[in-house]
């Protein structure tokens, strides 16, 4: 599925949260959204998911405007994981993941849907927690449950808003590896907002840099995530290190404003 954003704008009152953002996402591609807090990453992801519709421009999936697609069909195309998540006590892990299959369940739950839930949990190595209650998990495990829910949804496009924010470094790498494998294998795409520029660098095919709602840069990680760009967007000095494992960005000093 080809996702195309054209001149996407979003204003809250007189304030522009997104200003003429345009880029395309191809099947099998991972796009990382990076930028400082308040730069519009979450707003953009919610706009694509039609949770907060755009006020200008268009977002299309294979040429169809997302706003014209029925919510039920859209639920089969887009899988969204929010930044903050809520859950109800007394909900177990597998029940939470099962919600991803809501569109395919009428009343009772067929065996194949349960098998899908199992596969999603296993993909994130959460199978052994299936019976636990949500509040018995650590913050990172809970975040993995929500990612598993999106996996169970089996969408064409994953929309993840900082999915690794509560994860320790091992889980961060595991989740991103899993998502890269899944997007490659299933030719699905993923738009992921991340703060960790090294995660963006290592796992994204394309990086979109947002700053105050505007798209500052768009392209391959090695072309976009340069010390110059990081300085102008974040106001942080950084340098790149290259060794046998790849190239790494090391931010080291915040520049005083002005």
């Amino acid at each position: 599925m080809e996702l195309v954003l054209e001149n996407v704008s979003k204003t809250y009152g007189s304030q522009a949260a997104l200003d003429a953002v345009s880029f395309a996402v191809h099947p099998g591609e991972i796009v990382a959204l990076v930028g400082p807090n308040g730069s519009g990453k979450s707003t953009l992801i919610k706009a694509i998911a039609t949770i907060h519709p755009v006020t200008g421009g268009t977002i299309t999936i294979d040429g169809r405007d997302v706003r014209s697609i029925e919510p039920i069909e859209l639920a089969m195309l887009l899988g969204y994981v929010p930044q903050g998540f809520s859950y109800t006590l007394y909900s177990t892990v597998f029940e939470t993941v099962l919600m991803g299959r809501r569109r395919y369940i009428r009343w009772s739950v067929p065996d194949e849907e349960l098998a899908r839930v199992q596969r999603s949990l296993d993909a994130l190595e959460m199978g052994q927690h299936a019976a636990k209650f949500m509040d018995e998990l650590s913050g990172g495990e809970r975040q993995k449950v929500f990612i598993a829910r999106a996996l169970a949804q089996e969408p064409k496009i994953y929309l993840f808003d900082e999915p690794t924010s509560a994860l320790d470094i091992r889980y961060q790498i595991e989740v991103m590896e899993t998502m890269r494998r899944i997007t490659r294998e299933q030719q699905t795409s993923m738009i992921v907002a991340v703060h960790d520029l090294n995660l963006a660098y290592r796992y994204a095919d394309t990086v979109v840099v947002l700053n105050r709602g505007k798209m500052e840069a768009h392209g391959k990680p090695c072309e976009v995530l340069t010390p110059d760009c990081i300085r102008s967007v974040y106001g942080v000095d950084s340098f790149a290190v290259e060794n046998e494992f790849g190239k790494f960005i090391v931010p080291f000093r915040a520049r005083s404003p002005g």
Partner: protein
Amino acid sequence: MPDPSCHPGNPQPSVSSLYKEGSRRRIVLVAALLVLVIAVAILSAGIGTVSISPEDTVLAVAHACAVSIQNFLHAYLPAVGSWYDAIPFTVPSPSNPQAELIVVGFRLPRILLAILTGISLAVAGAVMQGLLRNPLVSPFTLGLSSAASFGAAVAIVIGPAVLGGLLLVGSNSFVIIMAFVFGWLSMLLVYAISRARGINQATLVLSGVVIGYIFSAGITALQYISSNEKLRDLMVWLMGGMWGASWGAVLLLIPLTLIPFFLLERMSWDLNALSAGDDVAKNLGINVNRLRLSGLMISTFAASCCLAFTGVIGFIGLMAPHICRMLIGNDHRYLIPCAGLLGAAILLVSDTAARTILSPVEIPVGVIMYVLGGIFFLFLIMRARGRGLY
């Protein structure tokens, strides 16, 4: 830490077996509650100034049913009627000749009213808590009870003056209608207010609470200006009870309870999905605003119908759903019927105790219910694996 899921041979319950085991447990609990409600109803019908054995209770009801069916058939379907008469089996009359009159005429309507009210309020509470994802929400925290009470107060205090010679409406049915109309109105108000600001759950709950206060002020004012005799009527209504039971009320409330129940039960999966938050629910293809509006309207409707006949019955709408969540979890497919049946059981036991403990003096049902239900609830919290409620 070694990860057991990496080793396929490791014994670990699969999602499928967990789901099936969970469903089985929940179905057993719902069935057990159903049996409990029926058993309590039969026992309750036997308790009172005249004791009637459970067998006589069952026979009295069966006999009354058989006779009504026979009369109905003879009146409207004579052909089937004669066929019915030819059945060689007749339901024997109960050994106690008064049993039928006492059970069917007096106690059963009251028992059924308690059951229907318990179901309505508990189901409404369970659905409202799910819709607004707020554990403190019940038909009473959303302003509904204050508004309905205000309607009833208006009818009791100034109704006779307004109606005067108009004998078209008996004063009692005027109270019922006013309570219902105001209860329903409060929900429209709550919704209209939150709509003006963009509907979200916090605004909804807050508007409900505020509207409750405004109507409470109205009730206080009416209490202040009303005469002694009317004040007593008003207090009785505000305390709530099954005094208004009659077959007319019960026959009206059966569809008004069961239809909302099935409509709300159909929302179960959407309610389940809503527990992950509005944004995720939207992403799962659920029209959250429409779900919230229709769910609130239907549950308010059901609760106001019963409330209009019984007066203020608190507690059940808040506690029955929580008790059930602790027992069977958050799946609304089971939670809604479970809460309804538990609500019915709590209210029926409390009402039976209320009318028999100090017989012939009746204690307000709320007194018993808060004590019984409250202790049971605290007991559950204490043994809830050391976890907080929310």
